[in-house]
């Protein structure tokens, strides 16, 4: 699953640690999501989308191998 977290983070001028604190997870988890090593749960994905105030599907997109 690809995502635009890094782009949105840059747009909102947020570090991984700051975003992690806002959604209640560790910085490592945000890093793993950005680098596509970990697919977040629906709850976490919705929380991240709400931080950036954009629809969920704008932030996360399915890939062919998903």
């Amino acid at each position, binding site marked *: 699953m690809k995502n635009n977290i*890094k782009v949105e983070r840059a747009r909102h001028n947020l*570090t*991984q*640690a700051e975003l992690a604190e806002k959604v*209640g*997870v*560790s*910085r*490592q*988890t945000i*890093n*793993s999501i*950005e*680098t596509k090593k*970990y697919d*977040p*749960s629906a709850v*976490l994905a919705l929380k991240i989308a709400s931080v950036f105030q954009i629809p969920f599907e704008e932030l996360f997109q399915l890939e062919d191998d998903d």
Partner: protein
Amino acid sequence: MKAKKSLLPKSKLWISLTLIFLPVLLFFIFLQFEVFETSDVLLKVSRIIGSVSLFGMFLLFMSQWTKDDGDEMYLQMRLRAVLYGVVVGITGLLVSSVFSLVNWLDIDYAHYNGFGLMFFILFMILTNYGLQMYALSKQKEE
């Protein structure tokens, strides 16, 4: 997140480590004083000590290893480690059983028991989880 509450806090990590190593240490100390009159008593006591140590290993697995440990990604890492441990444990048992059947390598497998297998599985689980944690710690902040 909710998963964090089900783990033993990092400040209480010493409990699991004590439960693992203290019984083994006490066992060796008792051996020096010849407390055990018969090998039957020795066997029973060693089983209790083994059980306490195995419980300590389980507690270690259910403890926070770092301050960040406990969110959903760490929960998935734990699940992955358990699956790995069970698969390796069962494979190990199967391979040793086959070796025993064909008498290959001339090793006596009579000592293989539940404690040994449980220790092996828990050890593999902890090793796998530790390696995953190590890989995570190498991530750089952006």
